[in-house]
C-alpha cells in the first residue's frame, strides 16, 4: 500500500499547487464562480482521496474548508480575503504535512487544531443559523461490538428483476453478515411478493448496506434493537405466527415488544445519516438562484491530451501543405505569392511553437515522486543520502514525462541500491558519510538532458568485462572503450550484482530502461569512475512529432538530418578523399571519420564529382556524412516506423516531402555510434 500512498502524495501535492493558484486568482476575482467551482472540486477530490489513504485529519480539514466553498457556491457566503487566507493556510499546512509523508502527527497537531478552530469560528461568525458545518474528527460508532437486530424489507418486483439482482445471492451475502430469518409475504393490495428479513449481527450498518448496495432506494433497512431479538421469545412467536399466515409484521408493534430500550426510530438513508427533508428542499432552491458562471471568465481549461495530439496532427498536415505550396511557387515563379508564403511560414512556425508549449510540463512533477523514493529507499537500506535536484523548471512534452517515470525510477533505485555505499564503508574510504544523488535537468538546443549522478562506488569495469567474456559477448582480446563497456549493461539480462536485492535487481531492467528511452527518440549513456561515482546521462528530444532537419540527397533518396546534430557542412572534392588517411577527412584542421550515405544505404549509381560532407555530432562524437547534395532546411513531420520497419537501424522515421516524395530521417546517434559501420567504411574509430 505504500506505493499507492506515495502516488497519492504526489497527486495530492499537484492538486494543492493547482488549488493555490486558483485561490490566488479568486482573491483577484472574488465573483468568479468558475474559480469557486474549481476550488471546490479540488478540495473535494483531496477530501475523498485523503480518507482512502489514511490521511484522515487532512481529509477532515479538506471537508470543513470544502463546506465553506459549498456555502459560497450556494450564495450563502461571499468570498472575502479572510476566506482566501484561511484556505491558503490549509493548503500550506497540508503541503507541509504531506511532504513528510504522513498524516497530521504529534508535531503538527497543534497547528492543525488552530487552523481547524479558525475555520469553525469563522463559519459560526458569518452564519449563525448554520451550526452544523463542522463535524467532530472522530465519529466513533458506539456499540461496535454489540449484537443488533435489523429489519429489512423490499418488494420482489419487476424493478428488482430489471436491475439484475439475484435474490439467492442477496441472501447468501446476508448470511455472511449475520443470522438471518427471511419471510416471504404477500402484499395486501397487489400480488407482489414482499420479503421481510430479520438480521442479527455485530456488523456495522455499512456492512448491511453493502449487501443491498444496488437496491438502496427500493429497500428499507431499520435498526430494530441494539440486542439480539432472536433471544426474545415473544418476538420469535410473533414473527413465526405472521410468517405462517404470510402476513406482514407490524414494525411498531415489534418495536414495542422491547420495552425500556432506547431505540432509534429514524429511517436511515444509505449513509446511516438522517436526512432532513426541509433542509434539502432549501438547498435545492438556493442552487437554482446561484449565479451562472460567465464564459468570458474562463482562465483555465482542462483539455484532454488526445485533443492536443489531434491538433498536432492537423498542424503537421498544415506544415506539409505549406511546403508543397512553397515548392509550386518557387517552381512556377509566382512572385506575388512569395511574400504571402513567407507570412504563412512565420505563422505556422509560431503556431507550432505554441502547440508544443501547451504540451510542455515541468519535470518537477517527477521530482516530487523521486524525492519520496530516495527518502524511503535510503531509509529502508540504512543509507544516508541527500537528494539534490537542479533545473526542475525544465519543460518536456507531457507524453515524454509520463513515459519517463518508470525508467528514471529504476535508475534512481539502482543508484541508491548499488551505487551508494553504506555509511561505514564511505567513512572507511574517506568519503563524506552522507552520500548524494543528484537529479539534474537542463535544455540543450532542442534536446533535454537529464543526468542522474551519484557519488557512490562507481562501476567495476573488470567485473563487467569478465561477465561479458563469460557470456561470449566479447573475446579476451576485444578492446573496448569505457563507453562500449558500459553499454554492455544495457544488454538484456546483463546483470552485475551478485545478489539481486529487494530494492532493485541490478542489470535486470536496464535493457528496458534503454528501450523506453529509445522509444522516446532519446539516448542513454553511462559514465562512471570507480570509487567516485556513476552518472547516467539521458538525452531527449523536447517534442516528438515535428523536427527541424537539413534535407540532403544521395542518388534518388532524400535524407533528413536533425538540425541540432549538425556541426558543419562543407564541399568535398575527390582530391580530398584521395589525400585522406584511414578514411578520415581533414575539416578545418580536424580529422573527422566519414561514411558514405551511398554505401550505408546501398544506393546504386555513380556519385557526382562534387559531393558534400555534413558533419554530425552526437554523443560527443563526430562523423562526416558524405552526400550527393544538400538541399536545405526542412521541417520534417515525423512519422515513426511500425511493423517490420520498426527495427530499422539508422533511421528514426520517415516524412513526406512537399512534392509527395518520401524522405527518411537519419538517426544520428546510431550512425555516430555504430562501430561496425565505421569499420566497414574502413575506419579505426575509437
Amino acid at each position, binding site marked *: 500500500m505504500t506505493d499507492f500512498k506515495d*502516488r*497519492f502524495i504526489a497527486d495530492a501535492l499537484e492538486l494543492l499547487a493547482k488549488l493555490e493558484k486558483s485561490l490566488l486568482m479568486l482573491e483577484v476575482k472574488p465573483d468568479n464562480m468558475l474559480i469557486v467551482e474549481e476550488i471546490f472540486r479540488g478540495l473535494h477530490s483531496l477530501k*475523498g482521496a485523503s480518507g*482512502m489513504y489514511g490521511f484522515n485529519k487532512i481529509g477532515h480539514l479538506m471537508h470543513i474548508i470544502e463546506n465553506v466553498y459549498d456555502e459560497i457556491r450556494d450564495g450563502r457566503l461571499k468570498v472575502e480575503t479572510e476566506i482566501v487566507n484561511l484556505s491558503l493556510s490549509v493548503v500550506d499546512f497540508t503541503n507541509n504535512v504531506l511532504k513528510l509523508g504522513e498524516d497530521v502527527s504529534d508535531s503538527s497537531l497543534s497547528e492543525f487544531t488552530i487552523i481547524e478552530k479558525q475555520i469553525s469560528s469563522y463559519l459560526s461568525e458569518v452564519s449563525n443559523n448554520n451550526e452544523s458545518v463542522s463535524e467532530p474528527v472522530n465519529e466513533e460508532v458506539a456499540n461496535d461490538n454489540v449484537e443488533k437486530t435489523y429489519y429489512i424489507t423490499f418488494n420482489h418486483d419487476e424493478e428488482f428483476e430489471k436491475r439484475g439482482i439475484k435474490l439467492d*445471492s442477496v441472501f447468501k*451475502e446476508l448470511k455472511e453478515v449475520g443470522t438471518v430469518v427471511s419471510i416471504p409475504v404477500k402484499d395486501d393490495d397487489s400480488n407482489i411478493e414482499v420479503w421481510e428479513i430479520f438480521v442479527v449481527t455485530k456488523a456495522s450498518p455499512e*456492512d448491511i448496506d453493502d449487501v443491498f448496495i444496488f437496491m*438502496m432506494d427500493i429497500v428499507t433497512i431499520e435498526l430494530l434493537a441494539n440486542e439480539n431479538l432472536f433471544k426474545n421469545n415473544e418476538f420469535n412467536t410473533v414473527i413465526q405466527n405472521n410468517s405462517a399466515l404470510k402476513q406482514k409484521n407490524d414494525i411498531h408493534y415489534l418495536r414495542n415488544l422491547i420495552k425500556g430500550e432506547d431505540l432509534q426510530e429514524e429511517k436511515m438513508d444509505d449513509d446511516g445519516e438522517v436526512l432532513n427533508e426541509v433542509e434539502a428542499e432549501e438547498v435545492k432552491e438556493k442552487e437554482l438562484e446561484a449565479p451562472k458562471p460567465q464564459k468570458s471568465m474562463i482562465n483555465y481549461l482542462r483539455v*484532454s491530451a488526445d485533443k492536443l495530439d489531434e491538433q498536432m496532427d492537423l498542424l503537421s498536415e498544415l506544415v506539409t501543405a505549406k511546403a508543397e505550396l512553397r515548392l509550386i511557387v518557387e517552381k512556377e515563379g509566382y512572385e506575388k505569392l512569395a511574400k504571402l508564403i513567407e507570412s504563412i511560414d512565420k505563422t505556422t512556425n509560431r503556431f507550432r511553437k505554441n502547440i508544443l508549449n501547451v504540451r510542455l510540463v515541468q519535470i518537477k512533477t517527477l521530482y516530487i515522486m523521486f524525492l519520496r523514493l530516495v527518502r524511503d529507499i535510503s531509509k529502508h537500506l540504512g543509507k544516508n543520502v541527500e537528494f539534490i535536484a537542479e533545473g526542475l523548471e525544465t519543460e518536456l512534452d507531457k507524453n515524454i514525462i509520463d513515459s519517463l517515470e518508470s525508467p528514471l525510477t529504476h535508475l534512481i533505485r539502482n543508484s541508491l541500491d548499488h551505487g551508494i555505499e553504506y555509511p561505514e564503508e564511505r567513512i572507511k574510504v574517506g568519503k563524506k558519510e552522507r552520500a548524494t544523488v543528484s537529479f539534474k535537468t537542463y535544455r540543450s538546443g532542442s534536446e533535454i538532458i537529464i543526468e542522474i549522478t551519484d557519488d557512490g562506488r562507481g562501476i567495476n569495469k573488470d567485473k563487467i568485462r569478465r561477465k561479458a567474456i563469460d557470456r561470449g559477448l566479447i573475446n579476451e582480446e576485444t578492446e573496448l572503450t569505457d563507453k562500449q563497456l558500459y553499454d554492455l549493461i544495457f544488454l538484456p539480462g546483463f546483470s552485475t550484482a551478485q545478489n539481486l536485492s529487494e530494492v532493485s535487481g541490478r542489470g535486470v531492467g536496464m535493457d528496458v530502461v534503454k528501450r523506453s528511452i529509445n522509444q522516446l527518440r532519446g539516448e542513454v549513456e553511462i559514465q562512471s569512475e570507480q570509487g567516485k561515482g556513476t552518472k547516467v546521462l539521458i538525452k531527449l528530444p523536447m517534442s516528438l512529432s515535428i523536427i527541424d532537419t537539413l534535407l540532403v540527397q544521395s542518388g534518388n533518396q532524400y535524407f533528413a538530418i536533425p538540425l541540432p546534430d549538425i556541426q558543419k557542412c562543407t564541399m568535398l572534392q575527390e582530391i580530398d578523399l584521395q589525400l585522406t588517411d584511414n578514411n578520415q577527412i581533414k575539416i578545418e584542421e580536424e580529422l573527422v571519420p566519414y561514411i558514405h550515405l551511398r554505401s550505408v544505404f546501398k544506393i546504386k549509381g555513380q556519385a557526382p564529382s562534387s559531393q558534400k560532407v555534413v558533419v554530425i555530432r552526437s554523443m560527443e562524437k563526430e562523423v562526416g556524412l558524405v552526400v550527393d547534395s544538400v538541399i536545405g532546411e526542412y521541417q520534417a513531420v515525423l512519422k515513426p516506423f511500425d511493423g517490420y520497419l520498426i527495427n530499422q537501424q539508422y533511421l528514426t522515421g520517415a516524412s513526406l516531402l512537399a512534392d509527395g516524395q518520401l524522405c527518411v530521417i537519419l538517426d544520428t546517434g546510431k550512425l555516430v555510434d555504430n562501430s561496425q559501420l565505421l569499420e566497414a567504411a574502413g575506419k579505426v574509430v575509437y
Partner: protein
Amino acid sequence: MAKTIVIVDDFKTNTVVIRHALHQKGFEILEANEPEDALKFFDGRQIDLMVTDFKMPGMTGAELTKAVKAKPQYANMPVLILSSEKSEQCKVDARAAGAYGWLNKPFDINRFLKIVNSIFK
C-alpha cells in the same frame, strides 16, 4: 472469461489503486480519468461493471451512466458510484440514470472488493 470493469475517476491515484486491487482479483480493467474517455470504452465490447466517481470535469457520474446506458447493450450493466458527495440529489440523479450502487468515499478497499465480488456471484 474474466469480467471486464471500467473505472472512472479524475483523481488518478484512485483509479490506480482500484485497478491494482481489482486486477489482483483477476478482473480485466479499463481505466479512464475523464468521463469522455470512459465513454470510448463502450464500443460494443463486453463490459460487466462500471465503477465511477460522481463529480468529474465535464460530466457527472450520473450523466456518464445515462450516456452509457443509452446504448442498449449496456442498459443492464450494473454501475457503482464511488463518491464523497453527500447531497441526496446526486444520489437521486444517479439512480434515475440507472446507477443503483453508491459507495461513500472514503471506503475500505476490502469492502469495495467484497461488493464487486458479490455483483458477479
